[in-house]
């Protein structure tokens, strides 16, 4: 699976994530093998209830797996063994990794309504005590066309504008990996395509890897490098098993 010369940013092997549902049934997600290269965009597609959100929670380091063989994040020369953090219950370490190396784009943006667009954009950088991001903020906001919205509150933005702000917030502090959960679900097709294109352009420019969950294959078919899907099984009543696999195009 390793492409010669390009180091994997993320390597996951032998993960089993279990989630108990309120109805009493259990959902089990198996990730036999998953990797992500620097600057690569991976799309995860599937129907509702197949495990997309569970995968995203797991990759966002907020859902601990029942079993894990390997979960490694490579930042430059540093190899962060996430599986060890989980085993040792180092929540603060996981929180630090999340803050420094991960970015998030949520379905409706996840912007904080009490902060202005500028404050929303700068918050991850302030959390990481990065001070020289203001010029980059202006440059990138111009690039995606939100430079006039910086002093607005999120509630005065349209759905598309909100998503673009969310995308910029996710990449501005320079994370290695961005997790996006159906970032264009709330906008029309035409705007969605433009947002995805801008997202991809920003990520390439920053060498940021993207893992995007979507149900709209066509939207990402020209920008994604690889696709993943889920194979569902119902071994017995009250148990759903889902396995992640790479779709070969």
């Amino acid at each position, binding site marked *: 699976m390793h492409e010669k010369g390009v180091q994997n940013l993320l390597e996951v092997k032998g993960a089993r994530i279990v989630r108990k549902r309120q109805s009493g049934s259990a959902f089990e997600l198996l990730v036999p093998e998953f990797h992500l290269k620097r600057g690569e965009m991976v799309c995860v597609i599937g129907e509702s209830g197949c495990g997309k959100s569970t995968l995203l*929670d797991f990759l966002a380091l*907020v859902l601990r797996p029942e079993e894990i063989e390997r979960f490694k994040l490579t930042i430059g020369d540093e190899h962060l063994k996430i599986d060890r953090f989980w085993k040792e219950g180092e929540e603060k370490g996981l929180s630090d990794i999340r803050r420094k190396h991960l970015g998030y784009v949520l379905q409706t943006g996840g912007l904080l309504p009490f902060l202005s667009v500028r404050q929303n954009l700068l918050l991850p950088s302030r959390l990481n005590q990065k001070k020289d991001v203001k010029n980059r903020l202006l440059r990138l906001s111009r690039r995606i066309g939100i430079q006039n919205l910086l002093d607005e509150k999120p509630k005065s933005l349209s759905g598309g504008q909100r998503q673009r702000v969310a995308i910029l917030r996710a990449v501005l502090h320079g994370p290695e990996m961005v997790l996006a*959960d159906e970032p264009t679900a709330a906008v029309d097709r035409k705007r969605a395509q433009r947002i995805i294109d801008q997202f991809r352009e920003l990520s390439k420019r920053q060498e940021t890897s993207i893992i995007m969950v979507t149900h709209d294959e066509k939207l990402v078919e020209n920008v994604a490098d690889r696709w993943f899907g889920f194979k569902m099984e119902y071994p017995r009543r009250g148990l759903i098993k889902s396995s992640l696999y790479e779709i070969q195009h």
Partner: protein
Amino acid sequence: MKSNIRLIPGLAIYDLRHEFILSTCLVIAISSVIAPLLILLGLKSGTIKSLRKRLVNDPSFRELRPTETREYPRSWFEKMKRDEDVGFIIPTILPASSTVYLIMPGKKDKVLMDIIPTGKGDPLLEASQIRVPLGNECVLSFGAANKFGIKKGDTISLKVSRFRSGRYEYATQKLRVIGILPEQYGTLERIYAPLDLLLDIEAFKEGRAVSKRGWKGSFSRPYKRFDGVLVFSKKALDPLFLNSLLIESGLARYGKVSAKELESNYGLHVPEEIFIYKFSVPRGNVTVFSYRAIKNRLRGFNARILPFTKPLPLFIGDKEIKVVGFSPDEKIKELLNAFFVPWNEFNEKRSGKDVFKIVLPMSFIGKFQKDSKIEVTFKGVKNVTFPVTIAGFTKDSFSYCPLELASMLNTARTREIHFDKNSISFILSQTGFRGFRLYAKTIDQVEPLYQKLKAQGIPVIAKLEAIRRIKILDSGLTRLFWLVAALGIIGAVCVLTASLYGSVERKRSQLAVLRLLGFSRKDLFFFPVFEGLFLAFFSSMLAVIGFEVVSGVINEVFKNEMRAGERICELSNWILFATLALTLLISALSSLVGAWKTSRIDPAEALREE
């Protein structure tokens, strides 16, 4: 990685500002709890403060008055002055002696008035910011000044009267008025003057002379007391006769004395063949009466009589000398070869400079000259210093003075005397006083002082009930305030707890996003805490403004019922600061439930709920 708590206060402020209307409502709700409490506390504090101020400012509430006239020794006053509860104490004279006539300036009218002693620390003068009158100065009560139209700076005359030897006698004294007491310190007609003047008035009323003021009368001289009487005889006296001398003489015993003993004890040289008998009273003094009695009985016998005192210590500067009271007649001088003594036999009428003489040992020749005056000090009950004229020198080691002087100094061993330079005589000092003016330091010390005097058997009256009433009112209002405050605080805690908890529930998704972005549980725990603190701060500020406005209105409404400088509703700055601190503390505690709820929010909720 440093904690991101530093970002939380800013986020909390932005959030409160974002929900401006909701935050304002909450601030108004909380301040609506605090402001009435402040007003209630202000009313309680203002009322009690004003009442206490009236008590504290009016010294009459601190006064303890004796209900009986009795003798209070000087030592008692000294002890009382050192008492921690005593603010001011001064002796007074007999009530009958403290009534004087005041003669109006420029008029002949005279009115009877009480004269009261005053001195340094008198609360009436201090409260009125009038200095203490000295010498021939006085302060008048408002009643006295107002009734007779006397102003500060006027000179008034006092006329003191007494009935002596079948006729009225008068003494007058001019006094300059240096101040008038305000009306609130009494409307009775009174003159406040230095204690010296009152003691002089009392002395005059009792028939004594006050030479420094030119008031005539008798003097209270110290009694003349001897240590014994010596009888010299050329032949032995019959013991039966000697015993008969004791009868009704006031003397208790006699004994033979050797010439040697007399020489060693008194420096007197008696020929060996002379019989010497000493008459005395064990552990007591021999009076002039006894001397006269024995002298009369010896009339016709070939015997000489010589009263004596034991050597008395006198100090010339630091040097101590032993002085023997020795007044021999011519025959004794001849017998004892005592012509170095220039004065003659004891004469109880001898007075003035004839008494204040001394014969010093030869060792003083060169230091002092004959007929010069020196100051000597006798250390009796109290030191008394007086001048004596050097009447000569003797080769003996003892010094000698007239027996009239020594016998008075003998009295000074047990009674306080002082030298009066005008009459060149000793005068018995007053031993005690007939009453006192007493003020406790504070109104809180009135009752302890009252109890102390009661324990000493000194009945006094004080305005204890008025003080107790204020204390009861204070404690009652305090309890009432805390009851209302407790209900208010419980209400405020409920409002804040519910609001902050509800706020956390409402903002769950936003808080989850903050967790996802990298804020730790500990960081976010402080988000509701800071929101609570800011709400409490703004509420306190609003409550203080509300209090200032309402208390201003209340004070304006009750203006006519209050004295100058008094306010019915007021709070000191420290209470306002304490209120702020307490509100912040309560809000911090109230936010803990919301804070705990916040810290339980999982970052995954952000991903899922979106």
